[in-house]
Every structure is written in structure tokens, then in C-alpha cells.
């Protein structure tokens, strides 16, 4: 799937946002409905949000973009002025130009794997651990599939997901994907020996930070190649393990606890 670049046009005055896509859409809605209340409702904004947006535009333009009349029982009346209409047209024209440029970049520039790195940067999830990597093996069974992802020179992550997910994501060797691991799924061990446990993922690193909360400790491991892994374990465990900053540690997590994502 080709990545899409969504270029956002924002006009600024005195360093502050004057108009962006949302505010222009608000002006268009006011022009269409003749009322701020109805325009806000149509766009899913609160009345206050809509009113603030329009006030901000009016304050920043030489002449107001919207004029209002306080309204009796049938509610207020609002009209987009000639100035406001010119603003809408100018904004949409600039936006069209920008879209033509971003489309051209998407078509020409984002064909390579290195450019696709962008999407993993743009992705936001609540999982503390997100590792971009390349699929190196896909082992299929009736229900489950074992997918191996190379995330750095020294580390691979094994995920067990369903066949349906594998098909939906189009996972096959060579494909790029992101492995997500919640920090609470990670078990820690001291890093001097390979623990004899079934967890498929055993990633060694150096503890660089420990933040203690009331019950839990959040631990950051430097796992090499510029990558870091976060684990949340109980404070009691950390005290019993006797791990301190600078010590080697091993992060363990089950393959079935790994979520995979693709662009």
C-alpha cells in the first residue's frame, strides 16, 4: 500500500495560527447554515469551540470574516462576509497547490523502504515498546502463525498471531512491520545468564533508568543499536532482583504478547 502524505496548510500571523483546515471548514459551514450553532453541530464542535475559532479569525483579519446578530427565539444569525468568502477561496486554492505537491512527493519519493520509515514514526500507540523491523520468517499452522521480525543487528522479536491477521497484514518475509509490546508484559531477569524459561523473546540490555512508583517500577533497558525497551514490574521484584542502573538485565516476553502492525 502506497503511503499517503497529508500536507496541512496553516496560515500564520504574528507567529499565531490564523487559519487552518478546521477553521476554514467552520467558515464554510457558517456560510452554508447561516448560524454558528448549526455550523458547530454539523462539524461536531462545541458551540464554544466554533465561537472561539470565528472570534480568532475575526480578531486577526483587518475586517471580520463573520458577522453575527444576536437572535431571539429562533437563535442567532451569522453571515460570512465578502472578506470571509475571499479567505475561503484563497485557502482552498493554496491547499490544492499543496496537495498537488504532496501527491507528487508521495508518488515519486515514497517508493523505497527507507522512506516508509516515516509511517512508523507517525504511528502513535499506548504501547511503550514499538520496534520497527523486517519480517525474516513466517511459520504457518492451522490457527496460529509464528512471525520473526529482525528489529536490529542483534535482536529479533518473535510474534505469534493468527492466520487471519497474517493475511490481513500481508506479512511475508521482507515486509516491514512494527512489533508492539506493552511494558507490563515484560518480565525481567538478571542479565548474567540465559534464563531457562519458555518466553520466546529474551532481549539483553543494560539498565539505564529505574523510576519507582508506589507499587511498580518502570525500568528502561538499553538493548543496543540505539534501541531501548521499557518494562514495568513491581517494586518488590526489583528490590529482590537487586538490579541497579548499569547492571545487565534480560527482558522476557511471550511471543503471544507481541502485536504486529504494518503501514
Amino acid at each position, binding site marked *: 500500500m502506497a503511503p499517503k502524505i497529508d500536507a496541512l496548510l496553516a496560515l500564520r500571523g504574528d507567529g499565531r495560527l490564523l487559519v487552518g483546515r478546521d477553521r476554514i471548514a467552520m467558515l464554510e459551514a457558517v456560510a452554508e447554515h447561516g448560524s454558528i450553532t448549526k455550523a458547530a453541530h454539523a462539524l461536531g464542535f462545541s458551540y464554544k469551540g466554533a465561537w472561539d475559532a470565528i472570534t480568532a479569525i475575526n480578531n486577526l483579519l483587518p475586517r471580520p470574516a463573520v458577522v453575527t446578530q444576536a437572535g431571539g427565539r429562533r437563535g442567532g444569525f451569522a453571515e460570512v462576509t465578502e472578506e470571509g468568502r475571499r479567505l475561503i477561496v484563497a485557502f482552498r486554492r493554496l491547499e490544492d497547490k499543496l496537495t498537488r505537491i504532496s501527491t507528487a512527493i508521495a508518488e515519486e519519493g515514497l517508493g523505497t523502504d527507507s522512506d516508509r520509515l516515516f509511517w512508523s514514526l507517525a504511528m502513535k500507540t499506548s504501547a511503550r515498546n514499538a520496534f520497527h523491523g523486517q519480517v525474516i520468517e513466517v*511459520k*504457518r*499452522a*492451522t*490457527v*496460529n*502463525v*509464528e512471525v520473526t521480525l529482525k528489529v536490529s543487528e542483534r535482536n529479533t522479536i*518473535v510474534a*505469534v498471531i493468527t492466520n487471519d491477521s497474517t493475511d490481513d497484514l500481508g506479512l511475508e518475509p521482507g515486509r516491514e512491520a512494527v512489533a508492539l509490546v506493552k511494558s*507490563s*508484559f515484560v*518480565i*525481567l*531477569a*538478571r542479565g548474567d*545468564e540465559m*534464563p*531457562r*524459561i*519458555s*518466553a*520466546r523473546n529474551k532481549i539483553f540490555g543494560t539498565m539505564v533508568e529505574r523510576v519507582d512508583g508506589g507499587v511498580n517500577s518502570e525500568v528502561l533497558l538499553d538493548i543496543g543499536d540505539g534501541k531501548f525497551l521499557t*518494562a*514495568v*514490574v*513491581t517494586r*518488590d*521484584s*526489583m528490590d*529482590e*532482583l537487586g538490579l541497579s542502573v548499569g547492571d545487565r538485565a534480560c527482558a*522476557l516476553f*511471550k*511471543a*503471544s504478547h507481541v502485536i504486529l502492525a504494518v503501514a
Partner: protein
Amino acid sequence: MKLSARNALKGRIESINKGMVTTTLKVDVGHGIHVTSSITNDAAEDLGLKVGDEVTAIIKSSDVIIGK
């Protein structure tokens, strides 16, 4: 072996069911309690698991669901 996981239940493997990717095993941890574990075949082979082996079922406290 010291781990951060708070729960370590010692027991004996009573059955092993190997699938194509995943192996399911039942561990008798005593007091009439049987813990089921699902691990990858590779993990089962690495550990050389056989019925009758003494093993430990390890569960993070944050993974435990409580019912009442």
C-alpha cells in the same frame, strides 16, 4: 533463576499437546490445581519438555484476572 514475575508455581507436567506452531501443556501444581500453558514449539524443544518433568509456571501479577 530469579525473575521479576511475582508468581512462580512449581509443578509437574501431566500432558503435552504439540500443535504445528504452539505446544499446550498442563502442569499439576498440587492442591488439585492444574495450570495450562501455551508456548511455542521452539520453546518446548529448547527446554526439552517431557511429561513428568518438574517445571515452574510463571505468571506476572499484572496478567492475573480476578473473579469473585
